[in-house]
């Protein structure tokens, strides 16, 4: 039995939340929020990022999921599981940096706990309550960096395949960067943002054809192993993408559009050459405008690509991302 075609599990709806405030590289630099050169980051494809203000990571998650429900006819009771995927450790807490930032206020620590009970206050539960998803059990998916939403989507499909009475899983990701910290990490610029996706049995679009994920725990210490991480990125990315295509019985020429992470245009110029995919078939338009929204890039880009008419029904799409930990994840969808 071919499980994929049997269940036709796919991503039926996508929504995102990006804070209204857009800040240019120059403004970030002037505010002391860039560790590297703004000119270099510009040459790597960035223009600016979205910065959250008062809204917390949970607020952004609720906003993204709320938009998903507002735009689509979804019976909230059909959702049996919420997978709340986060990259930053702080995002799996109720931490809220509020409005303080280096742009308009004093720096503060990432986690400020006044009571031990704060450690047990979970954003996923609050999300379920706010969205009134009474049939949904909540599960946090974290410790995968920017690959967390890929893990959530993979788990969602696996759960739907495994559990006959599970029809839909809501995957949500939201990350708010510590406002007073420098926003460039290994030559990409981090944006605040959130996304939500409904993974559904019998989805009308975005059938999940293949998911792969590789973790190299030896490179877990992103602070001290930055050079090794840089060197590992391309060989591992190429190998994983080729393995994913192979598992799906496809070649890169079968892929209508690559839906990338937003970790720099330059990285895609190189990776595109390595996997034999011309840049024209990589949806890079959002990199300069949006920056790297931690775990939300690919879903945000998938939605934009669909809205732009770049993809049509039946197209094979390849999504790829990379997260600290160290994780590489790849997914092939049939749109």
């Amino acid at each position, binding site marked *: 039995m071919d499980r994929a075609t049997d269940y036709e599990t796919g991503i039926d709806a996508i929504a995102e939340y990006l804070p209204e405030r857009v800040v240019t590289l120059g403004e970030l630099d002037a505010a002391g929020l860039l560790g590297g050169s703004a000119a270099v980051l510009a040459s790597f494809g960035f223009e600016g990022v979205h910065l959250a203000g008062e809204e917390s990571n949970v607020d952004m998650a609720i906003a993204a999921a709320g938009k998903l429900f507002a735009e689509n006819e979804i019976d909230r009771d059909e959702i049996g599981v919420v997978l709340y995927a986060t990259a930053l450790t702080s995002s799996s807490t109720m931490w809220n940096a509020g409005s303080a930032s280096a742009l308009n206020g004093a720096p503060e620590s990432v986690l400020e706990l006044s009571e031990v009970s704060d450690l047990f206050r979970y954003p996923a539960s609050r999300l379920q309550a706010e969205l009134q998803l009474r049939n949904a059990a909540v599960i946090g998916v974290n410790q995968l960096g920017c690959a967390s939403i890929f893990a959530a989507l993979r788990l969602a499909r696996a759960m739907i395949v495994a559990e006959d009475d599970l029809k839909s899983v809501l995957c949500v990701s939201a990350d708010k960067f510590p406002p007073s910290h420098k926003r460039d990490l290994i030559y990409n610029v981090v944006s605040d943002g959130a996304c939500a996706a409904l993974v559904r049995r019998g989805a009308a679009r975005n059938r999940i054809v293949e998911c792969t994920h590789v973790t190299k725990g030896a490179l877990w210490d992103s602070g001290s192993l930055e050079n090794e991480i*840089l060197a590992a990125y391309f060989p591992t990315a190429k190998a994983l993408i080729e393995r994913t295509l192979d598992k799906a019985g496809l070649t890169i020429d079968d892929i209508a559009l690559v839906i990338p992470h937003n970790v720099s245009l330059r990285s895609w110029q190189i990776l595109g*050459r390595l996997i034999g995919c011309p840049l024209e078939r990589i949806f890079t338009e959002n990199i300069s405008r949006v920056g790297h929204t931690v775990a939300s890039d690919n879903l945000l880009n998938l939605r934009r690509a669909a809205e732009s008419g770049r993809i049509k029904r039946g197209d094979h799409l390849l999504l790829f991302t990379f997260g600290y930990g160290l994780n590489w994840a790849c997914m092939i969808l049939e749109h």
Partner: protein
Amino acid sequence: MKSSSVLLTGATGAVGSELLRRLCARKETTVNALVRRGSARQPDIAGILGDMESIARVVVLEGDLRQGPTLGLADIDLDALARETTHIVHCGGSTSFTLPLSEARALNVGGTQAILDFARRCDNLQCVALFSTVYVSGKRSGGFSEDDFGDAGMGFVNSYEHSKAEMEELVLDAMHDLPVLLLRLSTVAGDSNTGMVRGFNAIHHAIRLVYNGLAPMIPGDPDECVDIVSSDFVADAALHLIDHGDTGVFHLASGAESSSSLADLIAGTVDSLVRFRPAWRKRAIEKPLIVDLDTYDLFVRSVEEAGNEVMLDATRSISTFAYQLAHPKLFDTARTRAALDGSRIAPGRALEFYPRVVKYCLDSSWGTRPC
């Protein structure tokens, strides 16, 4: 080379040291090892000879090739040396890929000019053996024979190749009036039996970068031949040719028969690291990718723009030789094979001895600790 007096330069280098050990095992031989004045090479030479019993007479002369035909020696020493010298073996010079061209020229072209001028003063000279590199071929691609010279206008990858090609122009002229043996070496990896490396070069630095997980990609074609040879083959072959009075150009290279493909060499590197340092596997380091030149250039440009010093050092280190891989070529060794026929001297298959070299690099921590 019976009852001979050999002037040897570069006696402490990767090839010179192998020649020194072999010459010292010969009866009725005097080895005048010319070392740079003030370079404290005498202890190095003692170290090279180690516990071997030197049968030959070894004299260390402190001089300086940069001073021209006097070799930096006093007149009286120079005259005596010219009278007794029957063979000159010139391994001296710079093998650095990163010197400015002017400095590389001064050492490799200027040094050779000094040797050739001195050779013309030697009444009993039977052979002047000069060491060059097969990479005088520069950015040529395809076959490069022992009758070919220079880069054919294609340019060079580094100042070492460039200066050696200019040095060969001098040598070509000298072939009219001197018994010149020009030996073009491939990349010398180490001893084929022990893996011992006496002179760490680009290939050993590349092994270290792979070991440290800092070599994500190198330019080239997976199927292209990579020519590496063992230091014992080079020394044995060179002395055989010198002993037999051969003159002309010879390639001490592995050639098509014994080369390995670039892909196999990289796989061999990784396999050896895993085999000799099992804990290395835990680091989950991927094999470097073999990429086209444009992709490699884009990566290097990105590293340069980012200004990451560690990655910058790594890419610079690779770039000094890696661009050579983007110009695949095959070194013809027909003349050398014919001259060595029946001697049982032949380049071993690269992949057979290369793992021992990797092991030596690991055990000696790239020459920083005894092993």
